């Protein structure tokens, strides 16, 4: 890895142990990543639990925020899957709030972005697709396999279509995981690079007059990253809803 004064955009993704923990030969140390997961849960709980503790008819700020999030996710879910999708509401809501909060908290300078690690996004993707498969089989049994067999196809085309449908189904968790991971990673790398570039230019004598240029870019990128942070949480959530819809209504 690069050392010393050189720009190291990967440094911010490093995982550092805070409390060393081992369980059955696995390293399960409490790290900066774990710390930020705890902070994410704390922030979401603050909004949705502390904010709503007064149960007021005319809501305060935190309660308004909690209600907005509730109605936003509820509308998203029922819009895609219909009323019966509300069974998955706690899962979808928890996913949305966790991803959104992790994305936003990651924008605090010096913070660790939980969702910038592929293992985290992969776990979420597997959770979603696992829920889709379990719920689909539980609801429709073998009929769930009709998801892969569109009706009204000529027999000779069937093998190809089924193959394509299976590949498409399997690529869902991969794209779900990679999209969130890639967006978070790339955004933070770009921010770091432009920030470091500004600092580098400032220390480069006459070239320091150019320093505002990457600074302006970094500011604009920060705004963009806020949008991306929300957008990726939104995309993750709506795709989750779309996939859950398959579990509820298999067959095209």
């Amino acid at each position: 890895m690069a050392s010393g004064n050189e720009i190291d955009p990967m440094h911010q993704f490093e995982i550092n142990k805070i409390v060393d923990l081992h369980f059955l030969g696995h390293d399960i140390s409490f790290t900066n990543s774990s710390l930020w997961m705890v902070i994410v849960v704390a922030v979401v709980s603050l909004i949705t639990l502390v904010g709503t503790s007064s149960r007021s008819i005319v809501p305060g700020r935190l309660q308004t925020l909690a209600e907005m999030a509730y109605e936003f996710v509820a509308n998203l879910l029922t819009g895609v899957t219909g009323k019966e999708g509300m069974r998955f509401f706690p899962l979808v809501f928890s996913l949305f709030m966790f991803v959104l909060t992790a994305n936003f908290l990651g924008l605090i300078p010096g913070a660790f972005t939980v969702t910038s690690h592929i293992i985290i996004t992969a776990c979420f993707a597997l959770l979603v697709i696992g829920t889709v498969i379990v719920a689909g089989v539980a609801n429709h049994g073998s009929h769930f396999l009709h998801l892969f067999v569109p009706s009204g196809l000529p027999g000779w085309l069937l093998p190809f279509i089924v193959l394509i449908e299976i590949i498409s189904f399997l690529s869902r968790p991969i794209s779900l995981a990679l999209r969130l991971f890639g967006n978070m990673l790339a955004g933070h790398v770009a921010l770091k690079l432009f920030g470091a570039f500004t600092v580098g230019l400032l220390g480069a004598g006459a070239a320091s007059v150019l320093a505002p240029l990457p600074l302006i870019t970094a500011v604009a990128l920060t705004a963009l990253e806020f949008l991306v942070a929300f957008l990726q949480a939104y995309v993750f959530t709506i795709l989750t809803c779309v996939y859950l819809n398959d579990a509820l209504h298999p067959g095209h």
Partner: protein
Amino acid sequence: MRLIATPFIVATTATSAFAAEGGFPPFDSHTFAGQIFWLVITFGLLYVLMSKVALPRIGSILEERQGTIDTALAAASKAQTAAEAEAAALEQALVKAKTNAQAIASEASAKSAKEIDAKRHAVESDLSAKMVAAEASITATKAKAMANVTDIAKEAASAMIERLTGKAPTAAAVGKAFSAASGE
């Protein structure tokens, strides 16, 4: 991985980094187990908190608010209906009062017209009676005047005869001659 006798070991070491092993941090598989472990714990906790406490609570808050709003709206629409009914009743009363007023007014005008008519009739008959009286008095005066004219003519005739003959005729003779002339 070292084998450990006790299944669970806690050791607090000063921030030892996985990163020291080098490479791209997100692809460092040494961190995977720990991340998954803490993700399961934290996300599991979040899921339980959301599904058991937060979401039912927010749902009930929203439902309660919807209920409050619906009740208030129903009350408002009821009040509006009542107000509209009242307004309609008022309008009706107004129309009735107007009709009443019109009837009274037309009755009054009819009555006053009758009265005026009667008065006029009275005045007219009075006037015509006076006219008849006046005509009678004119006729009487005329007859009287005519009688006077006869007397004056008799006097003038006797005066003319006296001048012509030097001898005044008797009144009877003049009267006889006059009645002969006027009677023919």
